[in-house]
């Protein structure tokens, strides 16, 4: 198992390098440089600035410098947040975003799987139809519509939950953002679990377990459910992508000082190094999380483990 993980990690490095190179090249394609918006700079000062930032070197040299910097953990300076380096911004934002994302994913699984299972066990009943209707809504209504609505209803009309700002450790602040972020994932996981459970409950080994007199609750919990979870685990990969994407909106609306907010501001300000740094961090996060998903998949289904005899 360890060998499998290491091998996958090694395979992920080229992917990351491609991302870095691609974003770097795209950035350099941008018309104008980072200093264009400043008040008209005398040519000399601009040339000095560019030399200081290494912008006068040929592309591949710049790329090399950048990658070496990355290896040191240095993402370069932020061109717009003058007092901060991108690394510092990442360091501030990452814990917040991770907490938000983790909360959302946890909610998604802890709510989505039981809802889907219940719907499957009470197939075609009232619960089933209710869960499916909610699922359609959750999937189709985008997060930037749900988030303001949720803030409106729960934050302002009902006054239950705080709507903006974030204090480290304050769980209440996280409730509304994490729930809105998790909603489409909960909906999809519920739908996926339901379909998968329906199939699993019909499978021959479930019938065989029942035929041996194993009690129904145990059949569902130990026989049917783990077999049904594999598509859900596979989905967790794209789900993380959805959560990362949605975090941009959620962090902006609820004023959370996470990576998403910096990314958006960087894009609005044309802060190249910041945006590039964010893209790389997000890509690295995605790769790491996808790897985790693959490991979880292998743990759930012994047939998939490397070295398993077929």
């Amino acid at each position, binding site marked *: 198992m360890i060998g499998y993980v290491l091998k996958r990690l090694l395979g992920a490095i080229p992917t990351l390098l491609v991302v870095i190179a691609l974003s770097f090249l*795209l950035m350099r394609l941008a018309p104008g440089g980072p200093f264009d918006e400043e008040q008209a700079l005398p040519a000399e000062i601009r040339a000095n600035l560019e030399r200081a930032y290494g912008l006068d070197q040929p592309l591949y040299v710049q790329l090399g410098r950048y990658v070496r910097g990355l290896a040191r953990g240095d993402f370069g300076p932020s061109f717009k947040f003058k007092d901060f380096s991108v690394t510092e911004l990442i360091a501030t934002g990452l814990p917040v975003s991770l907490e938000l994302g983790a909360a959302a994913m946890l909610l998604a699984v802890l709510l989505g799987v039981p809802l889907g299972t219940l719907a499957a066990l009470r197939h075609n009943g009232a619960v089933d139809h209710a869960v499916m209707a909610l699922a359609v809504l959750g999937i189709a209504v985008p997060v930037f519509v749900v988030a*303001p609505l949720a803030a409106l209803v729960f934050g302002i009309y009902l006054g239950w939950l705080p709507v903006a700002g974030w204090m480290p450790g304050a769980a209440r602040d996280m409730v509304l953002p994490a729930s809105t972020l998790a909603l489409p994932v909960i909906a999809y996981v519920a739908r996926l679990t339901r379909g998968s459970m329906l199939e699993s409950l019909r499978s021959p080994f479930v019938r065989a377990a029942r035929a041996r007199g194993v009690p129904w609750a145990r059949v569902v919990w130990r026989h049917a459910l783990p077999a049904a979870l594999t598509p859900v685990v596979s989905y967790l990969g794209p789900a993380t*992508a959805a959560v990362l994407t949605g975090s941009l909106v959620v962090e902006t609306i609820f004023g959370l000082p996470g990576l998403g907010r910096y990314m*958006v501001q960087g894009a609005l300000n044309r802060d190249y190094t910041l945006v590039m740094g*964010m893209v790389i961090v*997000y890509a690295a996060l995605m790769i790491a999380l996808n790897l985790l998903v693959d490991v979880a998949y292998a743990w759930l289904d012994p047939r998939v483990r490397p070295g398993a005899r077929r």
Partner: protein
Amino acid sequence: MIRKRGLWADAARRLVANRAAVASLCVLGALCLLVAVGPMLSSYPADELDWSMMGTAPDLGSGHWLGTDRLGRDLFVRTLHGARISLVIALLATAVSLVIGVTWGAVAGYAGGRVDSMLMRFVDVLYALPNIFFVILLTVVFDRSPMLLFVAIGAVGWLTMARVVRGQAMTLMRRDFIEAAIASGAGPSRVIFRHVVPNLLGTVIVYATLMIPQMILIESFLSFLGIGIQEPLASLGNLIADGANEMEAAPWILLVPAGCLVIIVFCFNFLGDGLRDALDPRDP
């Protein structure tokens, strides 16, 4: 030729029987009509600031049928303009994705072997990444030009299309008529574009229809954040952002464009599902 027509007629019949799809088609048709003609029906242009009527609620009598936003602009007209821009960008982005994706997939499917491996490895690598971030990167590169927004969105949306097309192309390549075409001396581009691609039409139509709502959502997402379409141009995304700011006092400013967006997305999804069932029925 007769057989071909029969296939399409069969599919058309199945589609017509699918009530959700037909309803969606009607709604979308009505919406397109409205988008084209609607602004002319109202007496208010989209960007006229009506100082006397800022932030008024929907009122059939006042001529502002769906109310006004906080600057006094008529919401009915603005939403229709927003819908127009969102739809146009989504269609253009889908077209870009189509062109790249179909070509990529068809070439990979046709060539097979190492070329196919290489092409699809590239797709796999990019597939694992959340493409929104690349789109954002591209919008920064393109300096947030609305013209090039659709290129940015389309440039990262082609991946699924490429995969699907490649799968279909690989199946097609084994069919006899392809072998016949190759044997009769047709060159690769001729085989690909005159034989493989036309037979992919059904799949491509289905996935293109399903891609449109995704493109709309991406564009609205970006416009909502201020990275896509900007003021004073209206897109459903930035209209929703406006509405989010005015939620407490004037909820309709949020609800009207949000409702419009949700309806469009729903309709395209139902239509796409209906097309998929019509062209590729799995139940007898």
